[in-house]
């Protein structure tokens, strides 16, 4: 710190950082000790993690989650790239309106998105299940991927593209050989950031998943309703830590300069 900050301000901030991180730390710490509740640390154990890995329901839910998250990331990153190109490069009628529509899901309450999608799927007689979850996830991750890729596009030096064209490349070759490689970190970041959105989503999935298929968050939710348990602590730790690694990589890529 190059300046001494007023002590009160500093203490207040530390308190708030504790507020932001303590709950997660509690979950992580108590997933590693044999006690069910309590304020005492009673030695180190991995038995709750073993219980998580052995649980058939959790395995099934993890499979559904990955079946949704992986295709979702691929498709919505692709659509996001195309959308970003369309919005950034071409001027067409209704562009501003379209841009607005893309951003609406970012601020719309999840509940409303979930309900609208549920009504939509039932009205076109689509059976609720993995497919509807996937479609829903694609639709709410597109705004995110589009936004991240557009942000990257704005930092690309357009003279490079002009140079390629001047040197005789046609538009398609320019895009493939110049623009896309420059965009690559942005596209990768979008994919890495979209993954946890899809993987962690609860509210929207809650509405569009049928009876048979539940993703990991839905599974955790039904476990939570039965009460606090160290198995949830262990599972929660895994759910928090693993996607976080992807996010850290994604954010670092996003920050890197062109």
């Amino acid at each position: 710190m190059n300046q001494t900050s007023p002590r009160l301000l500093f203490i207040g901030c530390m308190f708030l950082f504790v507020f932001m991180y303590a709950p997660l730390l509690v979950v992580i710490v108590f997933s590693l000790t044999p006690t069910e509740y309590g304020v005492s640390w009673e030695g180190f154990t991995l038995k709750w993690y073993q219980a998580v890995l052995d649980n058939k329901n959790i395995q099934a839910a993890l499979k559904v989650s990955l079946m949704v998250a992986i295709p979702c990331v691929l498709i919505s990153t692709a659509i996001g790239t195309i959308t970003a190109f369309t919005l950034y490069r071409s001027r067409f009628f209704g562009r501003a309106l379209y841009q607005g529509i893309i951003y609406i899901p970012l601020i719309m309450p999840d509940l409303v998105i979930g309900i609208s999608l549920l009504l939509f799927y039932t009205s076109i007689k689509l059976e609720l299940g993995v497919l509807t979850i996937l479609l829903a996830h694609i639709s709410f991750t597109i705004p995110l991927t589009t936004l991240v890729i557009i942000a990257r596009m704005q930092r690309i030096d357009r003279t490079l593209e002009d140079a390629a064209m001047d040197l005789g490349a046609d538009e398609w070759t320019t895009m493939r050989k110049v623009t896309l490689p420059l965009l690559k970190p942005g596209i990768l970041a979008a994919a890495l950031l979209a993954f946890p959105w899809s993987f962690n989503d609860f509210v929207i999935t809650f509405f569009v998943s049928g009876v048979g298929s539940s993703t990991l968050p839905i599974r955790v939710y039904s476990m939570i309703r039965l009460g606090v348990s160290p198995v949830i602590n262990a599972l929660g730790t895994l759910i928090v830590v693993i996607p976080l690694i992807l996010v850290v990589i994604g954010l670092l890529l996003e920050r890197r300069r062109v």
Partner: protein
Amino acid sequence: MGIVVYYSFLTRGPWGTVIHEFTLDSYRLILDPLFLKIFARSVKLAVLAVVICLLAGYLIAYWIAFYGGKRKNFLMFLVILPFWTSYLVRIYAWIALLSDHGLINNFLIEVHLIYAPLPLLHNEFSVLVGLVYTYLPFMILPLYASLERLDRSVLEAASDLGATARERFFRVTLPLTKGGMLSGSVLVFAPAIGEFLIPELLGGAKAMMIGKFIALKFIGLRHWPLGSTYSLMLLTMTLILLYLYMRIGGGKEAYQEQR
């Protein structure tokens, strides 16, 4: 372009469906006293969450922007990070902390400060804690951005002209960061008012909020038209709020640029 059309179809189609579903009956039920009570409570909790986030968020954003030094980026990273972790697990963590056999009650009993567990969970207090905890980053980000943009020479000028630290803060810093405060408030209020999971897990029956009420109508009672009407109301409110914000915010930015 085909995909583009497909996408706009996905986001917009549902509203049409909702509109086809309602009859006037559901609209009459908006005036249902139970609904109005829940609605009032949701507004109250969301406003309280905004106020607390505003105070706490300003503290953090101010500290990072003015005293963060070289660690600014890292500190902001710490602020954003929880946002990317599972929201369900984070809310669950509060159950583990606040319940009758939770960490806080157990600790207080162990040190003999209290003898019976405090009722921390399943009331408006726990819902409020959950809301503030979940949406605090949404407040810090715009506040930080506006504090960062603040021209430091204006602050120096204020001091040179004899303003005390307090005067400088209230008459220069605060008015100049109004934009950030406004964006942050909208970003916290909009999701907080429609929140479903927090009242569901932390609220219990005593702290029902509109989001949980709608979900109950949908999933529990399968009363789709009524649920749709309520959610349409929620959506309308959010959009009006956003529109007002863009009007005010847009005007203000133009004003700031003029100066």
